């Protein structure tokens, strides 16, 4: 087969679809979380990672504290106004493709801190894919949230909230390849 025909083939409908789902399958089963634990939920997140609940069973094995080595940001705990710029910076530093899970009432909505120094939900500054309710959520709930995220990844679910996200402080959007914004996605070959 000539080089040209391979390229033609790779552009063909059937092949891309399989490649997409193959990549998605790989991504879903090799999540590297960055635990952004700030408060009580952070402690419960430790239990999720620790013995008994053992997050590693779900292909979210290697906990990384460097945003350059992680693709899943686990926001666990209250995000205060003072912390928000730090969170945004960490999110921007992570490499594509990246996902965000917000664990607990505080991270999702400010929780019961209707207060002057607490950000009312981390989605005020970064795009969130999955919200896990609870104060703190039981470890089982967090595992469920991660499995939900895995299903989203596996089906290449569109994430408009993320594609249109802009840094709240600088107004800059993420450097996404143009294609990921406009072209229709192919989900599971359908």
């Amino acid at each position, binding site marked *: 087969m000539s080089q040209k025909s391979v390229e033609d083939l790779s552009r063909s409908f059937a092949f891309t679809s399989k490649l997409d789902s193959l990549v998605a399958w790989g991504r879903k089963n090799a999540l590297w979380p960055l635990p952004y634990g700030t408060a009580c939920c952070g402690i419960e997140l430790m239990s999720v990672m*620790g013995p008994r609940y053992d997050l590693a069973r779900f292909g979210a094995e290697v906990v990384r*504290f460097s945003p350059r080595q992680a693709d899943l940001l686990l926001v666990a705990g209250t995000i205060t106004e*003072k912390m928000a710029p730090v969170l945004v910076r960490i999110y921007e530093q992570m490499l594509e493709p990246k996902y965000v899970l917000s664990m607990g009432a505080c991270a999702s909505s400010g929780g019961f801190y209707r207060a002057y*120094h607490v950000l009312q939900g981390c989605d005020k500054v970064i795009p969130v894919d999955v919200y896990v309710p609870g*104060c703190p959520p039981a470890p089982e709930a967090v595992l469920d949230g991660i499995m939900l995220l895995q299903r989203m990844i596996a089906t290449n679910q569109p994430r408009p909230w993320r594609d249109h996200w802009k840094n709240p402080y600088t107004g800059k959007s993420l450097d996404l390849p143009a294609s990921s914004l406009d072209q229709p996605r192919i989900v599971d070959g359908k």
Partner: protein
Amino acid sequence: MTKIDELKQELEKHFQAQAQNQNFKFSNSVGDDVIEVPKEELIAVLIHLKSVHRFDFLMDICGVDFPNREKRFEVVYHLFSSKDSSRLRLKTQVAEGEAVETATSIWKGADWFEREAYDMFGIRFDKHPNLRKILTHHQFVGHPLRKDYEADHQQHCTETLPIFFNNEGSSRGDVLNENLVPLNIGPSHPAMHGTLRVMVELDGETVVRANCEIGYLHRCFEKMAETHPYNQVIPYTDRLNYCSAPMNNVGYCKAVERLLGVEIPAKAQAMRVILCELSRIIDHIIAVGTGGVDLGALTAFFHLFSYREKVYTLFEKLCGARLTVSMTRVGGMAQDAPEGWFDDVMAFCKEMSAGVDEISRLMIDNKIFIKRTQGISPVSAADAINWGYTGPLLRASGVNLDLRKATPYYGYDGLNFDVPIGTNGDIFDRYLVRIEEMRQSIRIIEQVCKNVPGGDFTLRDKSLVLPEKKDVYGNIEGLMNHFMLVIKGLRPPVGEVYDATEAANGELGFYLVSDGSANPYRLKVRPPCFAIYQSFPTVVKGSMLADAIATVASMNVIAGELDR
């Protein structure tokens, strides 16, 4: 002659030149001695009390806002004597824009407490070297704990501060030394436990200057307490020290109960003791386990957390929640222990005593661990007192002070247990003390579980405790009682109280001012690690960077209570 009369005579003699004491007011509030002094005399009185009466600890400094008074603010100093365990409260009034002289020359520990009062109320402290914001972010305008600040008025922060240090003598903190390497660690760094930020200047590996910035988890606990009824504050206290939540519940409820002047039933006391000691064990597990992680020992963490899970299971059985239990109520416990719970606790104790031996073999008897921690950044007893250390860290420095022995509550005086004391106050000693405390806690729990008192788990005072649900739904009296209590809330009398318990990392104090309404007028928490952590830049000066990380871990800094 009571203690306050002695103090009165003594002070009168000493200060007779100054206006014959016309201005000193002596009183007693719910068992605490209180002296009110004019602000000009304050420092002289503090120095005098420290030298003559040996009030060696400055436990806390806080402000209270009374917008309708002529002199709007009250600055309150909480003193403690390790000699006879007595407490004294010193108060002075300041008007807006006026300043009090700083107490940092008397106690080093006054530093952060004064900064906090400045941040929260705008009270200025003359001659304080670093009087700047501490809990709120640097773009924050106003002073949030003033009564005229709306609880939910948010102000956004858009950037973080560059590296800076404390002003010292001749050198300004924002001027960096160009021959040294500045390094920022955290927030959101594994060694900084999430929300701490440490900035250092390095000469090679050696720390020349260090500074810590806090406030990344300032969740406005005290403002929230002011805007909620007494019982609804309990869930907020859980989230102060989330490693040992029940201890905070107990500390808070104990303060409210003392202001109300009620004593809870024996069974509730026993349950509180068990909860507290179980929490102490899991808190020390976290301290030891994550301390190991910071030194590179990940196995210990995984191993220790399996014990923690077992305690969580006990909590779950008791009330359904794992981490944030909110098990106490003003007047007792929320509910009774389920059938067989005390036996489960006993079984856990048995397992745990084997576990503690294992932990100590794994960590404390480990050669690398010893090498990395022994003799590293020791704190002398005098320094520890000067900074306001309490709890395991103070005891590691060789001071025998444990509130469970010094001012026993809930029947601790009837129990057999020892208080472990260290010698050097280095990191190794701190872990030794913690491990031994776990053993003692097991002893305490076993003694209590062996004869749990019968009787009710809560008071049945209609003006304090909600009636049982079967009464609420079953008869009109219960319904009315429930209705009245929910609408009116429980209302302690006008007054104020400072009450302290021995929490896992030191003295946890609650200073509660009541104006007779259904919400606390002011609730000030004295978190143990706040006083401890402010010594960090001094303690690590001259040590290696890796040792500084080990020091943070050994201090067991919990951001929730540090930042409130």
